[in-house]
């Protein structure tokens, strides 16, 4: 997997729509080549959702780890593993983008 820059700030890609239905977070691809899902649905669970909510383009991944580790009283190391895992997956599926490179962040 690609090495993550923990100082980076990420935002949802403009090529997806994040939908909340009956309390479930679903990522719907808008354009082709996103997520590589055809007849499938990408849904985010509770752990993923708390990370997703912090991907606001203003908070770096290091800050996200710290905030969530404090909020959920888990070790920083454990939380970093979760953030790296989930953010890596989202990047692989092109569902988030680096806010520094995105015009949407300005």
């Amino acid at each position, binding site marked *: 997997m690609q090495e993550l820059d923990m100082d980076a700030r990420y935002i949802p890609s403009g090529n997806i*729509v994040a939908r909340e239905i*009956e309390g479930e977070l679903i990522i719907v691809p*808008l354009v082709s080549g996103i997520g590589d899902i055809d*007849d*499938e*649905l990408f*849904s985010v669970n509770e752990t993923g959702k708390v990370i997703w909510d912090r991907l606001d383009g203003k908070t770096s991944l290091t800050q996200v780890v710290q905030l969530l580790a404090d909020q959920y009283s888990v070790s920083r190391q454990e939380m970093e593993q979760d953030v790296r*895992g989930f953010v890596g997956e989202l990047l692989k599926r092109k569902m988030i983008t680096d806010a520094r490179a995105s015009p949407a962040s300005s």
Partner: protein
Amino acid sequence: MTAEYATVTQLPQYHLWDRTKGKRIPYSFDLELTARCNNSCRHCYINLPRNDRDAIKRELTAEDIASITDQAVSLGSLWCLITGGEPLLRDDFSEIYTLLKRKGLLVGLFTNACLISEEHISLFKRYPPRDIEVTVYGATKETYEKVTRRPGSYAAFRRGLDLLLERGVKVRLKAMALRSTVHELPEISRFCRTYTKDYFRFDPLLHLRYDGNKKRNAEIMAERLLPEEVVAIEQADQERADSLLRGCDELIIPALKNQESNRLFTCGAGVKSFTIGHDGYFRLCSSLWHPGCVYDLRKGSLKDAWEHFVPQVLGLRSSDRDFLEKCRKCPIINLCLWCPAHAYLEAGRMDAWCQYFCEVAHARAKALEKRAGLSQ
């Protein structure tokens, strides 16, 4: 990899459907962009002339549709099927299609493919539809145009279909089994299956028009196959016959004979889906046009329609003895085209018995029971 944070599930297996089984949530809706069509098919229930001014005047604008879609999305809608008439007749089709996609909907499209242009192809390549379904009215020009009654429509259909297929846009083909097509149905099936191996269906049952046009209704009735013909083509299609046999337990339910209910609606109308009419009227399903069962979205909200109006309609009951003894207790109702919506179109009453549907259902049941007996 995704297991700890997210899941990738086949849509039909998504756990939300099970979790919300007993709840009324409008996960999908049909959006009828227009009642007009570039063809004039003999069997069709909604195909006003392409330049019908009154029909154009009644159509929802893109702004209306954006507002209704916002409401649908907030109620939980995930799927939207764009239908008509022929949706591609709308000059603002691309705008409407894009806005539906941008709201986070999985968008499907029913089209006859005759009007497919390079612009549509670019649109579908950039924003892929969930699927596009095209009806094949004939494997030859003669049959196709006998149904559509528009010279040149076969060439336009082939050009549109080729464009979609060559450019890799996902298409599913289907057919209508009509008096005008039945002689060619095996060729039509082969044609469809050549292009869409994983999906093919044909529909042998026709309901009447939404506008009650007597001349056109007579044409639809003339296109209906005899019950024994319906059964013969269903049994001749191995895939369909096997599927009917597999579903036998749900198609023939002897226990329904003892059912004590006077409710009109026992189907899925208004439970997980609804229809937005071209004229801004909310309907519980695409066929339910009874004036007492539609809701004007230009005068109210989708939320009000879904939360307050639908339960009123679903609560309707009948005291008609014939209905209560025949249809409501019928063990083969699931093999029948009867439903309150189709009964209204057929006879002007939602609890009317419909002879043709009943005869087809009995012929189907007989064939199914025979086949089930043979396979045991």
